[in-house]
C-alpha cells in the first residue's frame, strides 16, 4: 500500500513511463489498478484459483517487459486484456489436454443433474448444489475444446460479448471469431446431446 502512495492520481501513460524506469511504486500501482480486469480474463480460462493467479502474474511480468510497446493510444486496460488473453491461450495450448466428454466418466451427481435439468424446459433456477455440478460439467465441456474455441464460446455465449469485442481482445478477424464460435457451439451441443440421448436411452 505504501508503494502506491502518490501514484494513484497518475495517468496511465505516466505510470507506464515511470514503470519503464524500473519505478517499483508505479509498477505496483499498475498491478493494483488492473488486477481485477486481468483476473477476470484469467478466470475466463482457468477455474482453478492457483492457475488463474499464475496467469495473472505472468501477464503483469510480460506487460512490464513490453511496456515500451504501450504508447497510450488505447487504454492500458485494453492493452493488458490482450496480453492476459494471449498469456492464457498460450498456457492452455501448452497444457493441450482435450479429453472427450464421455457418459461413462460422469459422476453420480452429474448424472442426476443431467436427468433433472434435461427433463425441465428452461427458466428454472439452480440450487447451490446444482450450481456446483453445473460449473464442474461446464469446465469438463470446455476442456474438450481448443483454447481458441473455448475463448470464443465463453465470451460470446457465456458473457454475451459481441463478435467485435472478441476480435478486439484476440486480434482475430470477425469472420475467424464467428467460425470459432460456430465450431465451439456445435461441438459443445453435440457432446451434450450424446449425454442427454444416452440418459434417455438408459
Amino acid at each position: 500500500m505504501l508503494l502506491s502512495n502518490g501514484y494513484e492520481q497518475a495517468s496511465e501513460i505516466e505510470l507506464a513511463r515511470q514503470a519503464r524506469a524500473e519505478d517499483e511504486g508505479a509498477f505496483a500501482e499498475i498491478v493494483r489498478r488492473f488486477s481485477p480486469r486481468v483476473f477476470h480474463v484469467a478466470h475466463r480460462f482457468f477455474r482453478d484459483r492457483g492457475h488463474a493467479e499464475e496467469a495473472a502474474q505472468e501477464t503483469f511480468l510480460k506487460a512490464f517487459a513490453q511496456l515500451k510497446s504501450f504508447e497510450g493510444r488505447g487504454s492500458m486496460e485494453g492493452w493488458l486484456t490482450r496480453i492476459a488473453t494471449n498469456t492464457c491461450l498460450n498456457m492452455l495450448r501448452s497444457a493441450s489436454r482435450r479429453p472427450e466428454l464421455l457418459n461413462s466418466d460422469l459422476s453420480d451427481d452429474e448424472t442426476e443433474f443431467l436427468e433433472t435439468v434435461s427433463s425441465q424446459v428452461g427458466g428454472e433456477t439452480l440450487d447451490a448444489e446444482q450450481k456446483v455440478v453445473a460449473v464442474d460439467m461446464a469446465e469438463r465441456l470446455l476442456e474438450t475444446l481448443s483454447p481458441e474455441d473455448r475463448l470464443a464460446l465463453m465470451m460470446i455465449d457465456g458473457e454475451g460479448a459481441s463478435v467485435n469485442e472478441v476480435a478486439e481482445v484476440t486480434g482475430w478477424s470477425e469472420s475467424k471469431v464467428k467460425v470459432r464460435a460456430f465450431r465451439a457451439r456445435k461441438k459443445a451441443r453435440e457432446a451434450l446431446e450424446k449425454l442427454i440421448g444416452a440418459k434417455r436411452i438408459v
Partner: protein
Amino acid sequence: MNHITDILDNTAFNGLTESDLSTIRAHTASCVECAHAFAAAELSSLLLTERVSEAADSTANANPFFQTRVLAAWREQQAGAVWSFRRLWNATGAIVASMAATTAALAVLVFVTPATNTTDQQTASLVPYSAETVVLEQDRGDNQMTNDQVISAIYDDDDEGR
C-alpha cells in the same frame, strides 16, 4: 434437421430471436432429434452461464496478497537480470580480458615496432661503417691472397717436401 441445428450453432442461445424460437418450437414438437439438439443447446448455455457467474465471484474474491506476490516475482526477475549479467561476466571475463590483452599486444607490434626499425635504419645510414660491414670487410681482407702469394705458398710446401 439441418435448418434447426444451423440456427442453434450460428447464434448464441441467449441471442436467439423470438422468431427463431418459434420456428424451433414448431419444428421440435414433431422432431425428436431436433428436440434433443435444442435441449442440448439450452443446457450448454445454462452451463456456460453458471461457469461465467462463478468466474465473476472468483474475480471479486481475489487473493489480497496477489500484489505482494507479483512484486516479489518482479524483484526476483530484476535481480535475476543483474545476476545473470554478473554470472556471464564471471564465466567469460578471463577470456575477454586475455583477448583484450592480446589485441593490445598485437597493436603494439603492428604500430610501434615498424617505427623502431625505421629509426634504426635511419641511424645506420648516418654511420659510415656498420659493425656488420666492418666484420665482412675484415673477413674479405683476410681471405684475399694475391696470385704470387698463392704460387709461393704452393711451391714453398713442395720445396719443404723435397
